[in-house]
């Protein structure tokens, strides 16, 4: 906490002291770039953290600016005028939240669709702003917007803007270090994994976008009294593009990057644009270089400074995480004549099988039998074309990954699926928070200290989990498998789906994992479904074995029964007739 106050206090002080160094005129100019910096910070936040690139943020700045213009003209000199600023920003933020929620729930493929939608929206906004003259003043915009009451001269407004910028920087800084920030970075890293941990990814993305719109809204609302003029240019393609460039050039993954980008590029452009016609070519080239080679932007040049900022100081105090409600019984699953097709290929051809009393069920079968597909269709990763899937006796019509996870299903994928750019501790924390956080918990850094006896036990068994500050991408393949298994276990699921948990593990690691699974089975009231090819593992763990073949149920029983079954042997090896 201390370092947070020091850091942001210094920035605020710096911002406020600027006019003493550069004089009144420059303070006025800088005011404008500070507003650009606010909007650029929003772009940096959604893009650099959550991986969502908004190509039309200008529209939100413009919307807020026009609203504030009307508000200020209407209210005049009463002190109530100051309320207009946050009100306009809040309105825009709400609009942004609703809009992005609708979009993010609309289609499941990530792609650049959202970026293109925001681009189309801003183009439309520009068109409307230019032609709806009665409301927007058309091409020439709204003029003679009154300033804020009591603030006379260039300096007063500058101080207001500087304070707003300083506070906003602190706000974003806080968010990025809070659990919410970690979740945003997780979205950019491995969205599917986050959904399978039970998080509402669309809502998280919408929150990020809403914050960006709040910042854009502040920028727009302050723009109106600062410039006393609002034109459609704010909604234009060019301005939105500039915001992306500020964020990229400055360094989108950091708090200060977009601020520095906006100020440096903005100021230099204004000064040099007329003197050196090729200045904008330099900017364009630098932007291309940033995209190709330097994703960290200018901030990478200040890397030592950044390390200073990012050092967390103290590790958060360890505390016991809230308990999850104790499950009455493990989850039961039933497939009734389930069919799945992908194009022309039949993947599941009327699969009917039900879990019974067994604690560990091993699912085996030759290539293409449909084992992983069965797990996929149950958890909503594949659409079902026919039949019923019953979870705890209830027909789940259209399973959806996050909902299935919240009902108590934990999943470990075939190829290790963790958050590679995040640290081991962050990976574990995100898994731990799932289903346990309430209300505004995601804004409390103390959540990073949560732990449970189960997690302690896993840390004891697997020493490498103790190097919490290591990035997950630095782990070996085997360690990543174990990390993912741990993440699935600490959510305390009622049903644990393990897809080849020991693939690629050394013999020692395999033994450790088998031990851990057996321990989990005894200490937690859960059912485990394991897809495996390694018969050694199946022998040691399985209470019941189910054999699939060509998308259908073939046989089941104990390990010995299945091994002795002639149909099973035939299916695995073929052989002469």
């Amino acid at each position, binding site marked *: 906490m201390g370092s947070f106050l020091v850091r942001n206090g210094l920035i605020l002080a710096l911002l406020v002291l600027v006019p003493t160094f550069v004089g009144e005129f420059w303070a006025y100019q800088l005011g404008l770039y500070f507003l650009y910096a606010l909007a650029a910070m929003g772009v940096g936040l959604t893009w650099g953290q959550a991986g969502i*690139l908004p190509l039309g943020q200008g529209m939100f700045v413009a919307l807020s600016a026009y609203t504030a213009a009307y508000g200020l003209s209407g209210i005049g000199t009463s002190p109530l005028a100051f309320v207009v600023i946050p009100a306009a920003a809040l309105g825009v933020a709400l609009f942004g939240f609703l809009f992005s929620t*609708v*979009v993010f729930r*609309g*289609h499941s*493929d990530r*792609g*650049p*669709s959202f*970026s*293109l*939608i925001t681009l*189309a*929206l801003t*183009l*439309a906004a520009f*068109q*409307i702003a230019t*032609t709806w003259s009665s409301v927007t003043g058309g091409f020439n915009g709204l003029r003679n917007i009154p300033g804020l009451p009591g603030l006379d001269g260039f300096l007063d407004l500058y101080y207001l803007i500087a304070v707003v910028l300083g506070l906003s920087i602190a706000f974003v800084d806080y968010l990025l270090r809070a659990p919410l920030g970690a979740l945003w970075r997780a979205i950019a890293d491995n969205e599917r994994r986050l959904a399978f941990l039970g998080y509402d990814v669309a809502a998280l993305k919408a929150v990020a976008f809403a914050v960006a719109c709040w910042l854009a809204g502040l920028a727009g609302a302050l723009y109106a009294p600062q410039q006393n003029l609002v034109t459609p240019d704010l909604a234009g*393609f060019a301005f939105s*593009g500039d915001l*992306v*460039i500020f964020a*990229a050039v400055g360094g989108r993954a950091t708090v200060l990057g977009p601020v520095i980008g906006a100020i440096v590029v903005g100021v230099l452009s204004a000064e040099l644009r007329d003197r050196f*016609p*090729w200045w*904008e*070519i330099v*900017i*364009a*080239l630098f*932007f*291309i270089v940033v*995209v*190709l080679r330097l994703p960290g932007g200018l901030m990478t040049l200040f890397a030592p400074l950044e390390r200073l900022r990012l050092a967390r100081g103290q590790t958060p105090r360890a505390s016991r995480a809230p308990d999850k409600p104790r499950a009455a019984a493990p989850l039961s699953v039933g497939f009734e004549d389930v069919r799945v097709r992908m*194009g022309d290929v039949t993947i599941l051809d009327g699969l009917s099988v039900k879990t019974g009393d067994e604690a560990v069920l091993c699912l085996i079968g030759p290539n293409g039998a449909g084992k992983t597909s069965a797990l996929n269709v149950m958890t909503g990763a594949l659409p079902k074309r026919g039949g019923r899937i019953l979870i705890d006796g209830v027909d789940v019509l259209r399973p959806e990954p996050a909902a299935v996870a919240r009902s108590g299903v934990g999943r470990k994928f075939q190829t290790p699926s963790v958050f590679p750019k995040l640290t081991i501790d962050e990976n574990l924390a995100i898994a731990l928070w799932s289903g346990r956080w309430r209300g505004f918990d995601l804004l409390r850094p103390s959540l990073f200290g949560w732990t449970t006896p189960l997690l302690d036990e896993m840390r004891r068994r697997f020493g490498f989990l103790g190097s919490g500050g290591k990035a997950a991408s630095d782990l070996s393949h085997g360690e990543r498998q174990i990390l993912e298994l741990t993440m699935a276990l600490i959510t305390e699921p009622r049903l644990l789906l393990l897809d080849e948990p020991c693939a690629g593990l050394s013999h020692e690691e395999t033994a450790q994992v088998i031990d851990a699974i057996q321990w989990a089975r005894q200490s937690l009231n859960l059912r485990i479904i394991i897809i495996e090819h390694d018969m050694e593992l199946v022998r040691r763990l399985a209470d019941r074995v189910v054999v699939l073949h060509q998308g259908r149920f073939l046989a089941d029983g104990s390990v010995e029964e299945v091994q002795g079954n002639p149909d099973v042997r035939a299916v695995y090896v073929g052989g002469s007739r």
Partner: protein
Amino acid sequence: MESLLVTQAINVVYEVLILAVLVLGLAVVMGLLNVLNIAHGEFVMLGAYTAYTVQKAGFPYLAAVPAAAVVCGVIGLLVERFLIRPLRYDPFETLLATWGLGLLLRKLVELVFGRGFRSVDIPIGGSVSIFGEAYPTYRLVLMAIAVVVVVALFVWYARAATGARIRAMVGNPVLAEAVGIRTRQLARNTFVAGTAWAGIAGVMIAPLTPVEPFMGLTLIVNSFFALVVGGMGTVTGLFAGSTIIGGLQSVLSASVSPTTAYLAMLILSILFLWQRPRGLFPRP
């Protein structure tokens, strides 16, 4: 009255065909290679400026065609080598990189030619009488060329050996390598063909539109969203997109207002991006 309707109908067909010609280069690059080349409009712009330069230098207009192909082809080659390939043909990254490229090209052209509008003389003047109304000959010529080109391309893509290899590479890049297709070179050549064609499209439209550095920006919007709606990677998609977007623009522009047409096109595109991002007839 009838003759006016006929002229209007021809106009709609004209708008659709011209859009198809403009979108073609992007359809190749975006539909086949998944590269979001938002600088596509700038390649068209470069083609238009090449046409202007060629005409100014006194050469026959037809010479602008190979000239533009070379100019845009060479730039396309450099872009593929230094932007697209290092970014591994990733749609998101190439969108960003080509945004920067677009800025760069616009500024360079502005430096060399200035910001003002240049006009290119129509190479085939005069008009043809259709149902009593005079219709510009050049437009009819362009329409004919557009039809020939799109049909020829369709046939070539479906029948020719290289067309089959492109289809193979696009559908199954691993197997394509296995059977001996040099996918790196084929992808590069396909990209360059896309940019070269954009240049030729620029030559075609240069006499009919004000030539200025920012002309690409208006073009890219229509082209991009025509593909979004029509679907990427198929010739049917190209036709469908051009017809819907071009037709909508043309009809609404004439009957209501250009602004309404533009807004309608944007709203339609947003709806598609939201619900059906792959378009009507995407590559399977």
